């Protein structure tokens, strides 16, 4: 409840956290729409989905999963560090998280460009020649991983803002709402990938 007298200086970490959770719900519903479409078509074209998934590189997928899981751990540790007042350690852990995010994006870049070399992208002549189920699989693959990659980038920007604010001392032991909420957002990015990975890479 607002106890501060002046406009715009209302601080309510609990409220911010509720807001972040609500936003995470909306993100889950956004991806939920794609998961629903995936479920419908996988049910309709299960053989083609299995066949098309063989083209995906499960090794890179696994690596990216490990990278994201580790980054989720480091971001959680950095929140704990700032709660204990150790902003240096918090910054270090966040830098590790950012590095992990970059590794993820670089892997993704190689993965996609590899497929583009073989003309495996929506609308290409190769893809147009495939079965309906396979076209849909690739369509979903690009849409889901693409949207997820966009979220990785947004998360990356958030984490960098947190690092800058930690350095300038605007995020402290008593005032770390942004830090915590960015961490929550990063867990969401991780969580969605944990569902994408088996659904796209491991169904062969």
């Amino acid at each position, binding site marked *: 409840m607002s106890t501060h007298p002046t406009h715009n200086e209302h601080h*309510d970490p609990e409220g911010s956290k509720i807001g972040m959770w*609500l936003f995470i*719900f909306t993100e889950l519903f956004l991806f*939920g729409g*794609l998961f629903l479409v995936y479920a419908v*078509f996988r049910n309709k074209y299960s053989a083609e989905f299995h066949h098309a998934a063989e083209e995906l590189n499960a090794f890179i997928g696994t690596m990216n999963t490990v990278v994201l899981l580790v980054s989720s751990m480091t971001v959680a540790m950095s929140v704990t560090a700032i709660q204990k007042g150790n902003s240096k350690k918090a910054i270090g852990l966040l830098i590790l998280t950012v590095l992990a995010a970059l590794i993820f994006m670089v892997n993704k870049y190689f993965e996609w460009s590899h497929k583009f070399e073989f003309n495996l992208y929506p609308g290409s002549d190769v893809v147009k020649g495939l079965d309906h189920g396979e076209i*849909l699989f690739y*369509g979903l693959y690009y849409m889901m991983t693409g*949207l997820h990659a966009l979220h990785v980038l947004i998360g990356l920007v958030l984490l960098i803002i947190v690092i800058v604010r930690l350095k300038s001392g605007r995020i402290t032991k008593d005032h770390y709402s942004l830090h915590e909420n960015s961490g929550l957002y990063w867990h969401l990015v991780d969580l969605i990938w944990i569902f994408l990975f088996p659904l796209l890479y491991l169904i062969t």
Partner: protein
Amino acid sequence: MSSTEKYTHESYLEHKGKYKGLLGWLTSTDHKKIGLMYMYAITVFFLVAALLGLMMRIEKIAPGPTIMDAQTYNGVFTIHGVIMIFIVVIPGLAAVFGNLFLPILIGAKDVAFPKLNLFSWYLFMTGAILGLFSQFVGGDPPDTGWTFYVPYSAESSTNVIWALSAAFILGFASILTGLNFIVTIHRMRAPGMTWFKMPLFPWSLYATAWIQVLATPIVGITLLMVIAERVLNIGFFDPALGGDPVLFQHLFWIYSHPAVYIMILPAMGVVTEIFPTFSQKPVFGYGAIAISSIAIAVVGYFVWGHHMFTSGISYWSRWFFSFLTFIVAVPSAIKVFNWLSTMYGGKISLKPPLLYAISLIFLFLIGGFTGLTLGALATNIHTHDTAFVVAHFHYIIFGGMGFAFFAGIHYWFPKMYGRMYSFRWANIAWGFLFLGFNVLYFPLFIIGLQGMPRRYFDYLPQYQTGHVISTIGAFILIIGIFMMISNLIYARKKGALAGPNPWKGVTLEWKIPSPPPLENFDEIPVITHQPYFFGDTNDED
């Protein structure tokens, strides 16, 4: 201000922030100013879309082309629908009166996230302007109807992508507003204001906000998929590429039916504030009204399939969706009974806000009952995609949400600007609006039953009588709209001072000066009793 009279305190309207003039408004995070900015933008878009609607009516005054060709007509009904649904009605009451009065009604100084609130307004304007671009950038205006049904929306050569992006961004703005309101209601109620001491307009906004947060992302991703379908040729919904068009309809209506409740719940909330004030009597069945808002939101989430009875869904899905459609009518009816019971035995003062609120009940009942006609499986087959549907949803959306907006603006106008409008002109404008509305839309029920399809630019001669009457109604309605707006604009400039509480209302907004000071309350009030407590003579419930 040109008037000789002036109020003595400094209100939010005169408050100077860092910047002056227009820039001051555009950078203000004051919830009241943001609410007014929504209102001005929405009014402009409403007038544009209303005039487009009038053009459609003129086109239909006689069979065959009269003032436009078929393709232009398709473009006009599309942009009329897109503006009215996504820019005017969905944000409408929640963004305007929610922003203006939610914090005041719960005894707060602002919403939980004022900057996010301003950001939502900018997103809203971006979406609205993209919607306008769809009309003017190279290529033809979109012609898919506001529902964007595939496969046509994936194939049409018009600027569909612009309209889709506009709807996507407007949806994002709506989500953020909803999120802001939920947190505001959870965290910022004044001390002593428990959930069941909260006024009922905030209750309805709370239910609305949850629908905004939980349903809008679905349409967001669906619109993105249609964009991907057009740009990348993926074919999620195109049967020629293995996709499923009925799947699109499901995803679209999973949002767009709850969106009807995003529109109507705040409307119900507004009139629920009005009935007790003008009956000088506590609202009847406070708990029932509060809970029925939540019930509408919950059940309304699961009725989307009733838009698809003729799309080839299974018998049991039709049975299920029809059944739930009848169930969702129950909490709506509870509200109507409660409004009537609130007036029963009260000291009724038939001022313009109450006049609009009562006509809302009348129009909403007609819209609601014809909704049951459409929700029943057998009659739906006959009336599906006819003018009957057009009449039904205009009775609900315009008769419900539109009249609630008019009621709300007449109710809160003296609070917003500190000045009072002419009751005489407000009543005359109401007469034109109410008469014009019924003359415009009622004939559509009849010719719809006789088989007049919706969205057709041409028709058989036997429907002409109905169409002519309807077009006459459109002119009367437009006159009423301009009369009402002129009356309010004049009052804004020259109206007499209203004083803090012209209606003898008892909710918190009437306990502060008109217009409210920048931070609403000098001291955050402490709430000790029910929100609709009219002195000692009445019972507290």
